């Protein structure tokens, strides 16, 4: 399980990278889906920005679309992926 500090850092980076000006860290639930209704409501362009975010801040490349669906499902899944793959 990834640390709470990593998840909070990730939320801050997502808010900044995606210009989510009306969203606060506490608005994003760790396990809620990032895309579609019922979550943060991100779109396909945001998905590309998340790929850039992982490369820019964590030097991780997500190139497999199927893997991307799982990695970017929620803050929990993103943080777990970073923990698992960080050097």
């Amino acid at each position: 399980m990834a640390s709470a500090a990593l998840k909070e850092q990730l939320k801050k980076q997502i808010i900044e990278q995606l210009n989510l000006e009306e969203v606060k860290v506490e608005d994003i639930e760790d396990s809620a889906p990032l895309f579609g209704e019922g979550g943060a409501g991100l779109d396909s362009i945001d998905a590309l920005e998340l790929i850039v975010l992982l490369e820019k801040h964590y030097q991780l490349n997500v190139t497999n679309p199927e893997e991307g669906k799982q990695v970017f499902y929620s803050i929990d899944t993103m943080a777990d992926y970073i923990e698992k793959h960080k050097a």
Partner: protein
Amino acid sequence: MIRKASCCRFTSEGIFVNGEKRFTLNHFEEELTEVYRQLSVEYPKFYKMDLMSKVSFLGVELLKGVDSELALHREDEEVGLLFANSESSSQTDLRFEESYTRDGLPSPSLFVYTLPNIAMGEIAIRNKWYGAHMFSVFPNFAAAYFADYGRLMLKDGAKRVVGGWVDVREQPDAAFFVLDSSLLENREEALQVLNQVYSNH
């Protein structure tokens, strides 16, 4: 008597709606967010738009505030969009270039705005206006373009056409106006009205 067109004008002095100053702009780009908030519009995608799209979005929202017929047109193909400027999307093009020369990584969200007609797409999506739309680039404000192509759009089924001139790279120089058949039936009068919209606040 010369007709008037509902209009909204952005200059370095501020934002004018039908000639009346509604907002003062000292730091143009930063203050657009405050204008958006004051309009009490709930559309979070505004924050992600590039500068030209933000100005176009706000211009049309302000036009809807003074043109009730335009505000009522929803979910139909009867509103056309006819835009132009002198700089295409160069303001965003440069930002996109900076994003990959500075960080080594191109920004996808900037890339999607590296076409000038995206500003019209944002307005069409927001208002569900699915009529014809056209964007052209001219050295200066071209009243004849708006009068002549506006008439073609009206002839082809549009009931109203929203015109927009949107330069944002140096200082704000934008004008938004509503064109309808009564305004455009006399070309000379239409040119006079359009030039007044652009030259006056």
